[in-house]
C-alpha cells in the first residue's frame, strides 16, 4: 500500500482528518526546510507538500511567489529537492511526501527520469499545477510505472463531467481549491465548498483535501468536516518569511494550533 493510502486509511480508522502542510524547498535554505519538515511531522502534520520553485509560479499569491524567488536565489533545483527527501527518509519512512510545482522544471529533467528518481528517493506523489489531464500523458505513464500517485486539482469552476474526467486519472488524493483565486487569497464561502465537495464525493472514493485560504483554527474548523483533510500553505510560508532564528518555534506553534483545531468536535 502506498504511504498516502496508508495514511488516509489510518486516519479514517481513528476518525481523524489529514493535516497537509506546504513549504517551498530551499526557502530560505535546504537545511531549514529539512528541520521544518521534521518539526511539522512532530507537531501533527500528516502529509508534506514540498513546493518546487519555478521562475513563473502563475497560480501563486505574493507570499508563495516570494518563497519561490528566495529558493531560486539559492539556486535550489529539483535535484536538490530529491536529495532532501533522501535525507528526510533516513529518519521518517512513514510520512507521505508530495512534490507540488509547475511542469517546466519537471520536464527539463524528463518525466521518466524524474519519476524513477523520485520513487527511489522516497517521494510518494506529484501535483503539477499547470498540467490538466489533457496534457498529462507522459507523467501519467511515468507515475504509474514508478508507483507514484498523481494528484490533481479540482476548482470551483469545474463541472461534473470534468470532475469525472479528473478523478479517473487521479490517485492518492484530490486537491479541492476552495476559491477562485491564487494561493493565500481571501476567504472562501463554506456553503459553496460544501456543495462542491459533496458532488466530488458522489463521484469518487479518492480522499479529498481542501486548500487555499485556510490559515488558522477558525478556517480549519469551518471546513474540516467536509472532506478527508485540509492543506495549509501561505500561512506557514508567511512565518518562514518573517522568520530569522525563530522560524522553527513559530511554525511549531502554528502546526499545533491547526492540528488541535482539526481534533475539535
Amino acid at each position: 500500500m502506498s504511504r498516502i493510502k496508508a495514511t488516509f486509511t489510518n486516519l479514517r480508522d481513528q476518525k481523524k482528518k489529514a493535516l497537509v502542510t506546504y513549504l517551498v524547498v530551499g526557502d530560505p535554505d535546504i537545511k531549514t526546510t529539512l528541520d521544518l519538515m521534521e518539526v511539522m511531522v512532530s507537531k501533527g502534520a500528516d502529509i508534506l507538500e514540498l513546493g518546487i520553485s519555478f521562475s513563473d509560479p502563475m497560480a501563486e499569491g505574493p507570499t508563495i511567489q516570494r518563497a519561490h524567488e528566495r529558493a531560486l536565489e539559492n539556486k535550489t533545483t529539483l535535484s536538490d529537492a530529491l536529495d532532501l527527501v533522501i535525507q528526510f527518509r533516513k529518519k521518517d519512512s512513514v510520512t507521505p511526501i508530495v512534490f507540488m510545482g509547475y511542469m517546466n522544471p519537471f520536464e527539463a529533467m524528463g518525466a521518466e527520469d524524474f519519476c524513477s528518481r523520485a520513487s527511489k528517493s522516497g517521494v510518494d506523489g506529484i501535483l503539477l499545477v499547470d498540467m490538466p489531464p489533457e496534457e498529462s500523458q507522459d507523467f501519467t505513464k511515468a507515475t504509474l510505472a514508478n508507483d507514484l500517485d498523481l494528484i490533481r486539482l479540482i476548482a470551483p469552476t469545474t463541472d461534473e463531467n470534468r470532475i469525472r474526467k479528473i478523478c479517473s486519472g487521479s490517485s492518492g488524493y484530490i486537491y479541492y481549491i476552495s476559491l477562485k483565486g491564487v494561493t493565500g487569497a481571501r476567504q472562501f464561502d463554506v456553503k459553496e465548498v460544501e456543495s462542491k465537495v459533496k458532488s466530488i464525493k458522489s463521484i469518487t472514493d479518492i480522499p479529498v483535501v481542501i486548500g487555499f485560504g485556510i490559515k488558522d483554527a477558525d478556517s480549519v474548523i469551518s471546513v474540516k468536516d467536509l472532506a478527508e483533510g485540509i492543506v495549509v500553505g501561505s500561512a506557514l510560508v508567511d512565518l518562514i518569511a518573517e522568520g530569522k532564528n525563530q522560524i522553527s518555534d513559530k511554525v511549531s506553534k502554528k502546526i499545533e494550533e491547526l492540528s488541535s483545531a482539526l481534533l475539535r468536535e
Partner: protein
Amino acid sequence: MTKEKRILPDSNGKFGLYGGRYVAETLIPALEELDKQYQLIKLDKAFQQEVSKDLQTYVGRPSPLYFAKRWTKKLGGAKVFLKREDLNHTGAHKINNTVGQILLAKHMGKKRIIAETGAGQHGVATASVAARHGLPCVVYMGEEDINRQSLNVFRMKLLGAEVISVTSGTKTLKDAMNEAMRDWVTNVDDTYYIIGSVAGPHPYPEIVRDFNSVVGEEVITQSFEEFGKDPDVLVACVGGGSNAMGLFYPFINTKNIKLIGVEAGGLGLESGKHAAPLNDGKEGILHGMRTYLMQDEAGQIKETHSISAGLDYPGVGPEHAWLKDTGRAEYVVADDEEALEAFKELTLIEGIMPALETAHALAHVKKIAPSMKKDEVIVINVSGRGDKDINTVAKIEGINL
C-alpha cells in the same frame, strides 16, 4: 488551400507539438467557454461586419502598402515595400487584435477588461478600446518596463486605465502576463483577459492570429494593385509574434513565398543576452503553452535582453514554433546595434520612423535585399511607429531630452 487553415490549431489547441492549454484547473472552463464562443461568433456575419467597420473607421484600415523607393535604390536589389501598420490608430498593429477581442468580450457579457503589456503598445491599444466601449480596464506592466516606457504609461492613464506595476520575477512582460493570469483566475466570472500576442493558452494564439490576419489579407490585394503579383519574401519581427503571424498567415499555403521572422539578437546570440528562443532556446512550458523558451538546464525561465521592450519576451507563439520545425518559415536574428542602425536609416531615407521592434525586421532586409534580383519584392510589416522609442534612442546617444 483553405483546408489546412482549419486544421491548425487542432481540437486540442495544438500546432503539432506546440500550443495546448497548460493552466491551473480553475481557468480550464473559462478557456473552453472562450473557445466555444469564439468559434461560433467568428462565423457570424453581423460580428464580422462590426469588426470590419471598426477596423475601417476607428483604426483607419486598410493601412497602405508603401514602396520604399529611395531605400530600395540604396540597397540595390529587391524592391522593398512597407506595410504601414505604424499608421494605425494608437501607432501599431496591436489595435487590430484589441478591436476584435473587446467585441468578443462584450458579446460574452464580460464587464471588466484586463491586459498585460511590455512596451505599452498593447496596453494602450486595450485601454483605447475599453474607453470606447465604456468598460473598466486594468493593465499589468513590469516595473522595469514602466520605467523605460513612461510615455505609454501616461497614455494608458489618460485613457482611463489603471496601470498596475508588477514587481515580481524579472519585472518585465513575462511577469506582467503571470500577474494578469492571477487576476483572471480571481475574477474569472466577469473579467475578459485580452492577451496581446499569439501566445498563452488555447484559444488565444488562434484568436490573436485571426484578428491580425487582416494585415496579410490586405497585402494580398495590395500586392496585385501595386506590382501585379505576390511578394517573394515577407519579413516581420518576432517577440511573441503577433505582427508576424498576421502577415504570414494568409500566405502559409502559398509555399513559394518565403516567410522570415526576425528575433531580437540583443547583445548577440553568443552573449546569451538576447530574446531569441527560436534561435537559441529549448522546448518547454510557460504561460499556458508549449513552445520554444529561453530557459536554463533546470527549466527556469531566463532573463532576456533586447533594446526593444516589445521583443523582450522569453517565449514565442506556438504557431511560430511549428512553422520553424516544419521549415515553412525561417527565423533569424538582428542584434541591438543592427536594429538601431536600421531605425536611423529608414528615418533618414524615407522619413518614416519605425518602432525599434520593427527595426529588427528592417535590419534583416538590409542583409538580404542587396543580393536579390531587381524584379523580386520584399514586403516588411512595419508593425509600429517609433515615437515611443525616442527616449530609448536619445539615451543611447547620450542626449538628455
